[in-house]
């Protein structure tokens, strides 16, 4: 290696060492790097679930036949549906929903058993409390599943012909796992993004505010060296946090890891470069730490909302769908899910990897330029 390059690497090493020392020396900052991510993953794992495990329901059974009893037994057998009332009259339905006695009412028509016996379609009516549309939709989904299952079983049990459909059931009846499995791999990117962006956004702004940045700029450090020296420690800390979250996911929540660790870390590393790039860019334009904090808050919220974590990207207005393309978190979530749950290899992930490389290249170069050109 040529001498200038060696000198440059030594300088970068010194800066990396200094940055890590500044963060890890302080007990409070060590704590804030290590404990909140674990708490967040536990909270998300338990609290952020779309699954229902208690659905109070009422029945208006106008059939009172063998088939209707069998169907209702299916509901009661789930452990999720709790029958809170047996209605005698359609006029009672409104009140039951209004006062939130039941989340759903199942109305079985009087011809239900007869129609089934004759092999004719039979109607089950579902009335759900639409005030909480999300919960209502999920509960309706459960009802539909139970009815589907009943549809599949009834003919078989009663000597009638029909396609045996039984496979879709198990996942539905393991709904707790369903959201958690989906959620936890996605949350890795979200949690480490918040931390690394904050850390890198503060790093230059703090030095500007304390006057140490000038001191740094009058040494032989080049802007690119400062950029690398600041990006590497933040990435390193981000990867450490990712590891902790992955360990919790596997050892505590027991979500089996399907893919290659190497592939996942390659994806996460690229994602962290992009996140640190955004953070450093914000930091390079902020004059004070307070400004940096406000800017980064303004950036993190849309990144989290437009990532596909909570709402599917396909459901967003088209303009927002395009916006998600410059959001590194969008790609990180896809990569984490696909590697973790599907075991996707690196070849399949290339469409999600290169956009992050471009985001990183743009933000990091902009930050580097700003280091010297911002007039404080």
């Amino acid at each position, binding site marked *: 290696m040529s001498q*200038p390059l060696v*000198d440059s690497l*030594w*300088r970068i*090493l*010194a*800066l990396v*060492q*200094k940055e890590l*020392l*500044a963060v890890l*020396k*302080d007990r409070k900052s060590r704590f804030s790097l290590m404990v909140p991510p674990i708490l967040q993953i536990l909270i998300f794992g338990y609290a952020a679930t779309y699954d229902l495990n208690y659905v109070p329901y009422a029945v208006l059974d106008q059939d009172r036949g063998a088939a209707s009893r069998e169907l209702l037994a299916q509901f009661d057998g789930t452990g999720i549906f709790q029958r809170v009332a047996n209605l005698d009259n359609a006029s009672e339905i409104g009140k039951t929903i209004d006062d939130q006695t039941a989340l759903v009412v199942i109305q079985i028509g009087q011809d239900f058993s007869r129609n089934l016996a004759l092999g004719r379609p039979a109607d089950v009516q579902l009335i759900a409390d639409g005030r909480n549309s999300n919960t209502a939709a999920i509960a309706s989904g459960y009802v539909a599943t139970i009815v589907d299952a009943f549809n599949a079983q009834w003919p078989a049990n009663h000597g009638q012909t029909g396609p045996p459909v039984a496979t879709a059931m198990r996942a539905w009846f393991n709904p707790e796992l369903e959201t958690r499995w989906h959620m936890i791999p996605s949350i890795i990117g979200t949690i480490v993004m918040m931390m690394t962006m904050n850390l890198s956004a503060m790093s230059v702004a703090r030095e500007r505010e*304390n*006057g*140490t940045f*000038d*001191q*740094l*700029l*009058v*040494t*032989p*450090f*080049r802007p690119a060296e400062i950029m690398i020296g600041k990006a590497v420690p933040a990435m390193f800390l981000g990867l450490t946090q990712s590891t902790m979250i992955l360990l919790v996911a596997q050892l505590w929540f027991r979500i089996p890891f399907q893919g290659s660790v190497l592939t996942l870390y390659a994806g996460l590393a690229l994602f962290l470069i992009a996140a640190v790039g955004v953070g450093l860019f914000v930091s390079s334009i902020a004059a004070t730490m307070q400004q940096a904090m406000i800017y980064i808050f303004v950036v993190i919220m849309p990144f989290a909302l437009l990532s596909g974590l909570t709402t599917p990207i396909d459901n967003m207005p088209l303009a927002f769908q395009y916006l998600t393309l410059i959001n590194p978190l969008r790609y990180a979530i896809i990569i984490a899910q696909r590697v973790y749950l599907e075991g996707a290899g690196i070849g399949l992930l290339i469409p999600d990897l290169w956009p992050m490389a471009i985001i990183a290249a743009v933000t990091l170069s902009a930050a580097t330029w700003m280091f010297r*050109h911002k*007039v404080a």
Partner: protein
Amino acid sequence: MSPPGVRVPAVAADGLRRTFRRDTGEIVVALDGVTLRAEAGSLTALVGPDGAGKTTFLRLVAGLMAPDAGTMTVLGIDVAREPQRIQDRIGYMPQRFGLYEDLTVQENLDLYADLHGVSAADKRRQYPRLMEMTALGPFTGRLSGNLSGGMKQKLGLACALVREPELLLLDEPTAGVDPLSRQELWQIILHLVAEQRTTVMVSTAYLDEAERCGRAVVLHQGKILTQGAPDEIARLADGKVFLADPPAGQTARGLQAHLLGAQAIVDAVPEGGRVRFIRDGAADARVDALAQVAVAPAQPRFEDGFMTLLRRAGDSRPASVVTLDKPPERQGDGVVVEVRDLVRMFGNFAAVDHVSFEVRRGELFGLLGPNGAGKTTTFRMLCGLLPVTGGTLRVAGVDLRRARASARQRIGYLAQRFSLYGDLSVVENLEFFASAYGLRGGRKRARIDWALRQFELGDLARLPSRHLPGGYKQRLAMAAALLHEPALLFLDEPTSGADPLARREFWQRINALTEQGVTAIVTTHFMEEAEYCDRVAILDAGRILAQGTPAEVRAHARRQEGREATMEDAFIAIVEEARAHGHPEAGAA
């Protein structure tokens, strides 16, 4: 105002003791058995080195903390028992007065008036008087963040005065304030004492300010060394103070450096081209450095008495001579820094307006001027931190903003504020900056050892640098700037806020460095410090008003009665004249 008939002292402290615990667990004694009285209507100065306990004492008077032992009675009230009753009757201006920078002058004043429950009638009566006194009248609509340092201090003072306190406590009100603003602040203080009969207690690092007070209290390491009238304290140095004319071929600061090295000399400072020094004890002790020198006795000043006291108290004279391992070659005296018609605009405002000067190798060049004169802006351009709007500059042959990064290896930069990493220890800071300058392995270790030894930082090596006492922070910053042995040093207000001892120590170090061939550019607003420089330039409002050797610049001063003109007299004359003539062409010396 004391109750009629009874003469209650405004402040009466008896056997006060106060300790603090540092983060590292060690106990620091801030005040140790302090007993003093300040009569109503008096003006008392608290002087002493950093860490002497001046601020702690003022905070105890204000009832902001309680003593560990002893009693404090203010205006006849026991402070520890009824702090609120005291606080309703006094005004306290801490070192960093809490002005709201996003509020205007008027809004700040209103806020403090309302906080103290000043009635509308009192406000109407008080405001015009305060505005007249502080000359802030034309600026009531300006954001206080946009005021100059001196104006901020005046506004802080106005806020402290808004409810007509009986006792006014001022903690270093003139620290970091230029000579003109300092003069104005003192006029206000003297006016308050003379006209309003306000009792004032003021701590200060400027010893000439103590001379203006009725009484001075000299604190040192939490104890009172002496208290009395300033001229009484000055008389402690009676018959020991002399002025020496440097012989041909020697500069005043060269002679001063020699004198400081001599055993029998208590103190030596350059003054008006000569050296003022204090002899120790027996006047007949031989001082080699004075063999060829014409010496005349001089009238002792407060500062001379103060220095004598501190030496007697065992504060060892700073042996602050820095020796470089590898001094820069001294061949020739080529131009190291060349500045031509330098301009820097911020919007429509010319922070630096056609400034030109040259600095030669081994020279100590001073940039003097009030706050906002453009000193720091000039520095930042020289160091490549700020692009120039117009003109040219060359530092060690290059423009540092455009030159390769390695060109910065040749310069050392000491910023105005302490700007090292506060969380890192002394040694970690040194290690980082050593690596930043490309030092490695044995060389790096040797340089860090050198720095710890030369700046006497060895005992504090593991302490986080933000916990260092003020003077040591300064040393660490300078050590870090010298690790790579730069040939050129930029020092931006290195002595601002430093106590008299730390300032002597600093100049001694700089002196030693320039003797070894280092070139240094220094900004300061301690005018007497200009005497240490080979050449100085006086800046105001972005322009150079005068430049030359200290003697040449001093010649601008108006005649003073009974004493020789000082640099401060010259400075005030030059700036006032330039301002009166709306900045005519810079009158170069």
